[in-house]
């Protein structure tokens, strides 16, 4: 072999990395430049539009979440308030009628405070109301009860039993029920309500789920690509998920749900400027994903649920497409990922056993999924998977 060629090949294939201190020194020198540059910027302030855009986006999201939270809170508060008003109005009316019969003004024996445990209070009031009505009817009849007798009837009512939706009265023997708004409902309706409550509040269910997601492989490159000044133009990217879901109610308001997505697609496309033209580049990643979430009803029997949980995912394969040409990049990415899930669900009860769930869920990957390659160490392309999922699930309650 010719000496020159051999020498060139040996030197250029050097396998020795320069010590880290060299890069540190380079940075130090550049920092001095940077400080001077910043001083210049301070003297001539220019608008940092990129930063402002981010602040605007973050503020909009916060505003949206706050508005949604306020709306749900107000709805719940209004419901409670209406119930309280009905309850208090009914209470005073009942006291007046009782005073008229007995000749004594006496408050009803209801333990709860006016706006606390409204449902319970309303139930008790209605029970008294009905009792007073019965006494009024008997007072009008020749065999009517004496006032002493009336008191004894009131005293005979077991208040602790009022915690049930159906209230059994000692006399006259009738079944009364109330709904959440303290309205009287018939015995037939009560059976229906009981059935529904069984479905809504109890059970173990299994189902199928599918999701459509707006995904983002968030790294330095795709983040910079959101700015107008960059040579990279980050594009909206989408993926689908299919899987099965298993759910179990663990308390009156809380369900635990385990979802296995057989396929969970994550992708990112962007255009970049190469040799005088924009070239489309995309990364497609397929994961198998396991998600454990707790869903919390915002009110008893409410179809609205807040969801929070964790996920773990296993990378099946990853491909990169540049200008229509694809290649596998599975080795460049970590085999696993994990992160947080938060969202909102709305459950439609289709029948006594079938329920249809719709929801919107945000996933935030906590791990850097880029494992690095010969040219680019992992830390230089720190990549987190972020996605917003629109989900649909069909569940069957096999145990109630």
């Amino acid at each position, binding site marked *: 072999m010719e000496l020159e060629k051999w020498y*060139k090949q040996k030197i250029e294939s050097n396998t*020795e*990395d320069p010590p880290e201190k060299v890069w540190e020194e380079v940075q130090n020198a*550049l920092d001095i*430049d940077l400080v001077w540059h910043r001083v210049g910027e301070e003297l001539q302030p220019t608008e940092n539009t990129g930063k402002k855009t981010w602040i605007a986006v973050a503020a909009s999201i916060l505003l949206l979440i706050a508005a949604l939270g306020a709306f749900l809170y107000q709805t719940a508060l209004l419901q409670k308030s209406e119930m309280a008003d009905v309850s208090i109005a009914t209470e005073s009316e009942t006291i007046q009628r009782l005073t008229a019969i007995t000749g004594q003004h006496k408050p009803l024996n209801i333990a709860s405070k006016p706006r606390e445990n409204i449902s319970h209070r309303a139930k008790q009031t209605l029970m008294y109301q009905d009792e007073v009505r019965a006494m009024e009817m008997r007072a009008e009849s020749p065999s009517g009860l004496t006032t002493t007798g009336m008191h004894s009837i009131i005293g005979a009512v077991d208040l602790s039993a009022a915690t049930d939706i159906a209230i059994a009265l000692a006399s006259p023997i009738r079944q009364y029920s109330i709904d959440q708004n303290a309205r009287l409902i018939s015995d037939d309706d009560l059976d229906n309500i009981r059935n529904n409550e069984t479905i809504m509040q109890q059970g173990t269910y299994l189902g199928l789920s599918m999701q459509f997601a707006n995904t983002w492989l968030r790294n330095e490159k795709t983040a910079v690509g959101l700015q107008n000044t960059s040579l990279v133009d980050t594009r909206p990217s989408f993926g689908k998920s299919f899987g099965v879901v298993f759910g179990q109610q663990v308390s009156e308001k809380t369900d635990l749900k385990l979802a296995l997505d057989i396929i969970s697609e994550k992708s990112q496309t962007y255009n970049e*400027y190469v040799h005088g033209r924009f070239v489309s580049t995309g990364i497609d990643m397929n994961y198998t994903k396991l998600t454990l979430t707790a869903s919390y009803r915002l009110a008893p029997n409410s179809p609205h649920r807040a969801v929070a949980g964790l996920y773990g995912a296993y990378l099946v394969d990853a491909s990169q497409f540049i200008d229509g040409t694809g*290649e596998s990049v599975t080795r460049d990415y970590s085999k696993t990922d994990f992160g947080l899930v938060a969202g909102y669900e709305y459950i439609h009860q289709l029948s006594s056993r079938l329920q249809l769930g719709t929801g919107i869920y945000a996933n935030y990957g906590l791990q850097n999924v880029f494992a690095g390659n010969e040219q*680019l160490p992992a830390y230089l392309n720190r990549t987190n998977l972020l996605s917003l999922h629109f989900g649909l699930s069909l569940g069957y309650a096999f145990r109630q």
Partner: protein
Amino acid sequence: MRQELYRDEEIVNGCIRNDRHLQEVLYRRHARKMYGICLGYAGSSRDLAQDMLQDAFVKVFRNMDQYDGKGSLEGWIRRIVTNTSIDILRKQSRHIEFIQGEVPIKQEASGEDALSQIATKDILNTIARLPKGARIIFNLHALEGYSHQEIAEQLEISPGTSKSQYSRARHLLQQWLQPSDS
């Protein structure tokens, strides 16, 4: 060939914007090869090679806006590394030493196998034995492909000196790199 995540255009643009992340991407991509070149000029002195590499990359980043994109980015960086290395060697001493006297011509090394068994470290130690001037000339011609005219202009010597120094350096290296018969 594997496509890189970061293209040269993007890196250059980022470096011009003083984007530290893309500056590091550029550094990591080219530092190893450029360090090898610096070692060739520094003659196995790692401290000196590191100084060369450091100064060279600072120049690269400071002058990135002058890269016109016509040639390869690596070629442009390499030119800066080479020039920086020579400048540093020149600054070390005003006078650049050359090989004095004739070098006896011996038969070339026995072939590919003999050369391929020599480690890079030994090559660098060997090249370090050359006087500084001959070492620069050998590197500029063998590594960078400079003509003797270009070398002469760069080092402010005559093309004849460049030719003769190169020839002597080559013969010396062959002698030193030949495995001993014992």
